[in-house]
């Protein structure tokens, strides 16, 4: 809200540069975003916190300045108005939404342009000048925080009724919009129809124009909750509605009306008529307990009683002191203060936050442990980056075109989640797999001219399982192009480069089973099982899909990290290194090429049992030297017994056994 420095000074007696005022206000919670110098004055743009309805006026800001600088506040005088016997009846049919309503009749005004000083003042704070009557209502609203509305009294039929709109009623508001009304809208109506939307905007019909002779000046207090609701429903926010929403000082309503009335008859002529008022229950602020000892225990400072008392006095609050417990009564404008802690804030705000010392609290340990998911993520991140894969963090929204991608990962009754009110229709779907996000990123990478990438993301995915909304943490990997390269050699991304990452990360605890995903290559896709449960998948993007998306060969893998215990990733039971020699043995096995290699390795494991420390497939050969339809698998075995040196004879015995087993699956050991 823009304020004028000279205008503030009308209400508070200070003699300091505006910068100092701006600084103190900012530190006390009313941030001054800008000081603009104009002619012989300054404009201070105050940003008002949501709870400080009382500061939505020159008077309110001046009150803060008065408290901060301990300078006297000059409240406006109550005008003495000479009234003639003429008025307009009012009826408040919805008192729950309108605790106070006043309507002043003013007779015989001359509507015209405002005097220059008035025009200048309101324009400097950003209000458009319309005519003298309307300008005065805006001027007083800005000054005192009480929204006012002037009707052309001759357009009012019989009396004014504050009531909920009837279904089907319509009104054309001052902005020229025709609006359909519902029962949740509070209207100001006459005998025939609505003439304004309460607290939001007046109607076009009853607008004050150059031909207006008699004015009905409304000053009222509307419920902040319902005003906010109406403003939302109508998608209409005005200076008035904003003030009602944050809450106005209900005890200012009549005074504001009187001050505006006095100005109108002074500047526009006419006679003051009667004021009709509805205010059945006068609002009196309640006193609040304040315990100085507890204040010190919560804030960490010990101001003297007189310092604290002084703060309340400067704010205009009343203080009753009892032993250990005071009763403090705020002014009626300060509806934000209802709890003891609210009073604490007032004290520290005025004394200054800089007066509070800076003290480290002692450590508290072992009560809440850090989330295992967090620790797991950290370990995974460190491991996977050490393998050359780089991290990305993408949006949770995925392009709608990828909505059903990788559908096969989930059971049929699981569905993706969309937001009801997206910013853009094409970004309404929450990802149910990171692969969707990574695919989207791959498209961007290629468009930006980057065909080589090796990326991962660890993040949340979302889906709906029956009626429950599920969030899980996944790991996604996408690889394409060259992974390692130089002018003399290169390693390209492949199914196996991606698989290798997973094997290293998940310590070879995974099983890969061929699987079908419509967007993946039918011959190069697998589900990944951990302890017999599908926890992920891996595959090459289907060439048809790649062509449509203008992508090169892309390899994607995704794992449900939540399914893996933290222990899998941490250091397990440490084994003592063996000092016995390792026996290295290379063997070549020829098997039908349709046989999955896992059948061969499981035989190796079975035959050599615990003497097989580890093994490596170091060559795979198909070609003229072996029969057609077979493949030669060359393994390098590391053999070692835990308790003795393994003999050549023992190994040969096992090799004989291996030969027999291989024969069962149609394979044979190939002699060198």
């Amino acid at each position, binding site marked *: 809200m823009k304020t004028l420095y000279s205008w503030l000074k009308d209400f508070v007696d200070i003699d300091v540069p505006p910068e100092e005022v701006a600084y103190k206000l900012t*530190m006390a*919670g009313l941030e001054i975003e800008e000081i603009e110098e104009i002619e012989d004055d300054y404009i201070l743009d105050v940003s008002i916190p949501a709870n400080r309805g009382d500061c939505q006026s020159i008077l309110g800001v001046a009150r803060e300045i008065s408290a901060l600088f301990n300078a006297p506040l000059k409240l406006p005088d109550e005008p003495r108005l000479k009234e003639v016997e003429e008025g307009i009846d009012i009826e408040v049919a919805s008192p729950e939404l309108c605790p106070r309503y006043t309507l002043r009749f003013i007779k015989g005004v001359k509507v015209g342009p405002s005097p220059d000083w008035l025009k200048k003042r309101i324009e400097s704070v950003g209000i458009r000048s319309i005519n003298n009557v309307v300008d005065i209502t805006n001027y007083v609203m800005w000054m005192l925080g009480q929204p006012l509305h002037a009707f052309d009294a001759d357009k009012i039929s019989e009396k004014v009724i504050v009531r909920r709109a009837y279904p089907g009623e319509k009104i054309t508001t001052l902005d020229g919009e025709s609006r359909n009304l519902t029962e949740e809208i509070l209207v100001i109506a006459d005998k025939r129809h609505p003439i304004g939307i309460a607290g939001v905007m007046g109607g076009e019909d009853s607008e004050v124009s150059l031909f207006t002779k008699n004015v009905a000046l409304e000053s009222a207090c509307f419920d902040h*909750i319902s005003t*906010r*609701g109406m403003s939302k429903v109508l998608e209409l926010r005005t200076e008035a509605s904003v003030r009602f*929403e944050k809450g106005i000082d209900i005890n200012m309503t009549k005074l504001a009306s009187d001050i505006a009335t006095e100005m109108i008859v002074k500047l526009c002529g006419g006679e003051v008529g009667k004021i009709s008022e509805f205010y059945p229950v006068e609002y009196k602020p309640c006193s609040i307990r304040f315990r100085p000892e507890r204040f010190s*225990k*919560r*804030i*960490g*400072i010990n101001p003297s009683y007189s310092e604290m008392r002084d703060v309340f006095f400067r704010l205009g609050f009343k203080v009753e002191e009892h032993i250990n417990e005071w009763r403090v009564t705020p002014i009626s404008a300060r509806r934000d203060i209802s*709890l003891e*802690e*609210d009073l*604490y*804030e007032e004290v520290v*705000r005025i004394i200054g*936050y*800089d007066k*509070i*010392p*800076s*003290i480290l*609290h002692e450590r*508290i340990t072992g*009560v*809440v442990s850090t*989330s295992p998911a967090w620790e797991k993520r950290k370990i995974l*991140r460190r491991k*996977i*980056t050490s*393998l*050359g*894969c*780089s*991290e*990305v*963090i993408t*949006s*949770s*929204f995925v392009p709608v075109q990828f909505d059903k991608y990788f559908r096969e990962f989930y059971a049929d009754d699981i569905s993706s*989640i*969309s*937001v*009801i*009110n*997206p*910013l853009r229709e094409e970004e309404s779907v929450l990802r149910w797999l990171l692969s969707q996000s990574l695919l989207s*990123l791959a498209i*961007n990478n290629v468009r930006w001219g*980057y065909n080589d*990438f090796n990326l991962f993301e660890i993040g*949340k995915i*979302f889906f709906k399982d029956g009626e429950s*909304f599920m*969030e899980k943490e996944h790991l996604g990997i996408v690889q394409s192009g*060259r992974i*390692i390269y*130089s*002018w003399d050699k290169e390693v390209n991304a492949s199914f196996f480069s991606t698989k290798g990452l997973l094997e290293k990360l998940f310590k070879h605890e995974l099983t890969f089973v061929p699987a079908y995903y419509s967007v993946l290559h039918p011959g190069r896709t697998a589900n990944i099982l951990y302890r017999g449960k599908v926890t992920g998948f891996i595959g090459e993007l289907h060439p048809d899909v790649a062509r449509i998306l203008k992508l090169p060969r892309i390899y994607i893998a995704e794992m449900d990290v939540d399914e893996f215990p933290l222990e899998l990733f941490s250091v397990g039971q440490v084994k003592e290194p063996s000092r016995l020699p390792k026996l290295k043995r290379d063997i070549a096995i020829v098997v039908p090429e349709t046989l999955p290699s896992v059948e061969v390795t499981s035989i190796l494991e079975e035959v050599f049992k615990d003497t097989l420390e580890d093994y490596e497939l170091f060559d795979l050969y198909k070609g003229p030297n072996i029969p057609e339809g077979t493949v030669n698998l060359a393994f390098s075995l590391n053999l070692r017994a835990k308790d003795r040196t393994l003999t050549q004879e023992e190994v040969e015995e096992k090799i004989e056994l291996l030969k027999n087993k291989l024969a069962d699956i149609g394979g044979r050991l190939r002699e060198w």
Partner: protein
Amino acid sequence: MSSMELELNNLRSEALKEISSINSLDNLREIEIKYLGRKGVLNQLLKELSTAPLEERPELGGIINQIKLEIIREIESKRTLLEEREKAKKLEEERIDVTLPGMNISPGRLHPLTLIIERVEEIFRGLGFTVVEGFEMETDYYNFEALNIPWYHPARDTQDSFYITDKFLLRTQTSPVQIRVMEKTKPPFKIIAPGRVYRRDQPTARHSPVFHQIEGMAVDKDITFAHLKGTLDAFAHALFGSDVSTRFRADYFPFTEPSGEFAISCIFCKGKGCRVCSYSGWIEILGCGMVHPKVLEVGGIDPEEYSGFAFGMGWDRLAMLTYNINDIRFFLENHPEFLVQF
């Protein structure tokens, strides 16, 4: 000198001549075999010695052995020479252009948001905090109601939400974690809760509909605002250096009372005023305050017995400040040229 002696002398000079003229290790090996082999010339001579007169044998034998030793010595020194020469030749052949570029083995890099949170986590862990996490899909209750933000509260205006159903939404702040922790945990505790949040804002350089926050909370008997200041001062000094100044000013949040806003002296202009700090010399880092008594009550904690502080900061913003990045959208865009710099 006997004819035998003469013959030996000739043999010696012939052998030495032959050795000196040799140019390859292979030829040297041939010569070695020729003279020193089991059936070589010298062994043959030693055998033939038996035919010589008995009294001459020792002397002739001595001469033969002497020649043998001499040949061995010559061959060995020749071998060393040839081996050196061959090695030198091989090394020369293996010469490479050391100015050619090396192999491109890229390290896996962490995302800048990760780099920042790891630093933040380390700092707060050192201060006795632990890390907890919450849900990104929250109910209206946890995201607003429980945090003292009823449906009509004006604070909702700045937190326009993405709704999934009329009750479920994407959390607009990490603060719901406060409630979830209090519901489960008896004080004392100190937690930070980093995570993703969502607001229905048009993406601009400063706002992203998907962004990240770090929530913090400590609850114990006798926690004061001074402890909040101490904690945040320690944090700011650890993250931005001990030479930054810090400032607290009053602010408003529905779930803290009193509330404050925490700023550091501008790290770009050292407080003199620049574009980043809007010429104020200060950069706002976070909002904070003492946990509102109503919020403690909602969490099942008696505000007469316990007190606590809480704070919340923009994680992306912290990264923007640390790396002097002007556009928040870079983080989720993941352009390779952006990421490669971290």
